């Protein structure tokens, strides 16, 4: 090997890039479009090609100090200006400030007769003049292929377009050339042959009646780039592309735990709450209070002064605020304080990808500490896609250190449904809410299915939605199974009765014993008394006997004396 070899990587050789200012696109192209080169932007009608072009120029003029020329082959300047007002672009002002030039090139086939050889030098002259008049660095040609409808000699046209793109390169402007999507090729007239430095494809697919816009960088000569299809969004805040390949698992973790907003649940989790930056899933049947758990969490976060973002897919903001008021969770003050923001939308409004793009954008804008998605089960579609969407959403939150709480409506029964199973691996903490139906009533039970990194409670707990929020109570777990609600109360009453009976029994036995003892002792006393009497009598008899004996002895001696023994 050659020891003298110089380092192969040199910063000055690296491809210069021009930032588009379009969120996400600059990330996935690692710095924007190739500077000083043309980029082909192709897609079917209604994909947003023109808006991409306008955004590129407006951002260049307002944020990067690069003026731009918009050469429109389809729309008149006035129409164009009006169309982008809804996106918040003041194109007319930029034109007045000489930062952007709009040139409408109109070619009407019917008005033109061709006689002999010609070229498109006129276009070059106009473009050159426009560029030089404001010192433009950015150029958009939208849609140059419209020329094909205006001229019959395709050979000349192709040669001229090739010359145009080479000329743009020589001119050193960063250009976007839009092209209509063709059959079997990227553009209708195959102009991708001539613009080969960077090709971006826009797509607008309808699946299950839901439209999703997607963007793909087909090629980018001399640069690495994200190769997937990325959803993008066009709305009143402009264009945002959602780069979602950042699925690395390198995010920083936190040991800090934050309150769930439910004191009993904090205790169950073992560390006083969820880990900051973790993903939490709350699954349960309808009416088990999933949203309430979410709201309790938000309430706790807002009280700590953290910003929260709630994506609601089933209820409107006012509805949620009203409903949560009924369980003592007051969200209105947090909204007024600017700590809580609602983003409510029907799930069917866009495809998942669009929702994801929108959520990502909102998260970037609002920079919340806590995100609640209520519920993820509102998304209907192939589970693979839902899973991919949720992976990305969880990933976005994790990389930003946002604690994300997802609610999910589970289907009936004990079995996990497809959606739950697919997302379960993403979740750090999974709380399952259950319904227990017995004795003509329904009661709510909760248990922690999992909680990574916590020595959490394994117990099933009953909870009530009270006027003061969620309250956990100990469920009755005994020989007769888990009892809840009135059954639990009844069982507890029964147990109390049984205890009473048992205690009474003991008392009775104790009393009986005492009585027995007393009676035995009485008998003993009687016997002893009897014995004493007998003893006393016996003593008396003995004494009498002895006294008699003495008398007898006296009598005998007296008699003896009398018989002659006397002196």
């Amino acid at each position, binding site marked *: 090997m050659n020891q003298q070899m110089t380092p192969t990587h040199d910063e000055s050789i690296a491809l210069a890039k021009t930032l588009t200012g379009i969120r996400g696109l600059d990330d996935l192209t690692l710095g924007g479009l190739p500077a000083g080169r043309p980029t082909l932007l192709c897609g079917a009608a209604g994909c947003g090609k023109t808006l991409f072009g306008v955004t590129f120029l407006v951002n260049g003029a307002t944020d990067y100090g690069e003026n731009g020329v918009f050469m429109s082959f389809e729309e008149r300047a006035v129409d164009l200006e009006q169309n982008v007002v809804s996106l918040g672009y003041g194109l007319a002002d930029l034109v007045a400030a000489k930062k952007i030039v709009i040139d409408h090139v109109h070619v009407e086939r019917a008005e*033109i*007769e061709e*006689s*002999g050889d010609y*070229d498109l030098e006129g*276009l070059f002259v*106009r473009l050159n003049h426009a560029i030089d008049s404001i010192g433009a660095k950015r150029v958009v040609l939208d849609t140059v292929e419209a020329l094909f409808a*205006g*001229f019959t000699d395709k050979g000349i046209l192709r040669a001229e377009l090739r010359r145009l793109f080479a000329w743009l390169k020589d001119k050193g402007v960063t250009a976007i050339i839009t092209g209509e999507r063709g059959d079997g090729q990227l553009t209708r007239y195959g102009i991708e042959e001539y613009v080969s430095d960077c090709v971006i494809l826009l797509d607008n697919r309808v699946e299950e009646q839901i439209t999703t816009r997607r963007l793909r960088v087909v090629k980018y000569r001399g640069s690495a780039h994200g190769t997937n299809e990325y959803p993008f969004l066009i709305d009143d805040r402009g264009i945002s592309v959602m780069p979602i390949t950042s699925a690395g698992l390198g995010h920083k973790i936190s040991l800090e735990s934050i309150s769930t907003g439910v004191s009993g649940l904090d205790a169950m989790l073992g560390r006083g709450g969820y880990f900051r930056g973790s993903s939490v899933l709350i699954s349960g049947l309808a009416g088990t209070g999933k949203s309430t758990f979410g709201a309790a969490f938000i309430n706790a976060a807002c009280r700590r002064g953290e910003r929260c973002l709630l994506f609601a897919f089933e209820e409107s903001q006012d509805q949620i605020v009203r409903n949560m008021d009924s369980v003592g969770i007051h969200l209105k003050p947090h909204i007024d304080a600017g700590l809580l923001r609602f983003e409510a939308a029907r799930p069917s409004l866009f495809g998942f990808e669009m929702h994801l793009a929108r959520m990502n954008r909102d998260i970037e804008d609002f920079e919340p500490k806590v995100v609640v998605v209520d519920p993820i089960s509102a998304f209907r579609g192939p589970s693979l896609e839902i899973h991919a969407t949720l992976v990305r959403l969880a990933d976005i939150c994790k990389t930003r250190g946002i604690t994300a709480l997802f609610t999910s409506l589970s289907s009936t029964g004990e079995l996990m449904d497809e959606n739950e199973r697919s997302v379960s691996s993403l979740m750090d903490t999974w709380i399952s809410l259950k319904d227990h139906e017995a004795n003509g009533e329904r009661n709510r039970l909760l248990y922690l299915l999992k909680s990574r990194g916590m020595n959490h409670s394994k117990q099933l707990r009953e909870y009530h939605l009270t006027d003061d929020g969620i309250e956990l109570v100990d469920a009755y777990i005994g020989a007769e199974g888990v009892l809840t609600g009135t059954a639990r109360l009844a069982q507890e009453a029964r147990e109390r009765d049984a205890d009473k009976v048992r205690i009474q029994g003991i008392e009775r036995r104790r009393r009986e014993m005492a009585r027995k003892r007393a009676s035995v002792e009485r008998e003993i006393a009687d016997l002893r008394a009897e014995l004493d009497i007998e003893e006393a009598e016996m003593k008396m008899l003995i004494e009498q006997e002895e006294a008699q004996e003495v008398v007898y002895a006296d009598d005998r001696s007296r008699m003896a004396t009398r018989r002659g023994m006397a002196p």
Partner: protein
Amino acid sequence: MNNRLGDNEISPDKETMDANDFADTGDYNLRLYVAGQTPKSLAAIANLKHICETYLAGRYTIEVVDLLVTPTLAAGDQIVALPTLVRRLPPPLKRVIGNLADTERLLVGLDIRPKDFKSP
């Protein structure tokens, strides 16, 4: 460099006119856009002069606009291809592109009808 080539006035030689001939009664105001003295430009100028002298002698004015000198004029007349000949009068506006080598198409483009042809 706006050249005026030929401004001789000749009255219509026809006694009666029908509606279709009306356009031919007026003067032809033609403007030829070119970019520099390229072979194409020069050919177009030469071809145009020849045709006008042949068919419209005395009834036309030609203005040659070099867009390299006055590029601002290109947008106004929607010039894309060069050379472009614009018939500004009589109305309606008509355009012919190319070096004008194809006489037949040029005549069609300028709406000059064969029955009006005058032999030189």
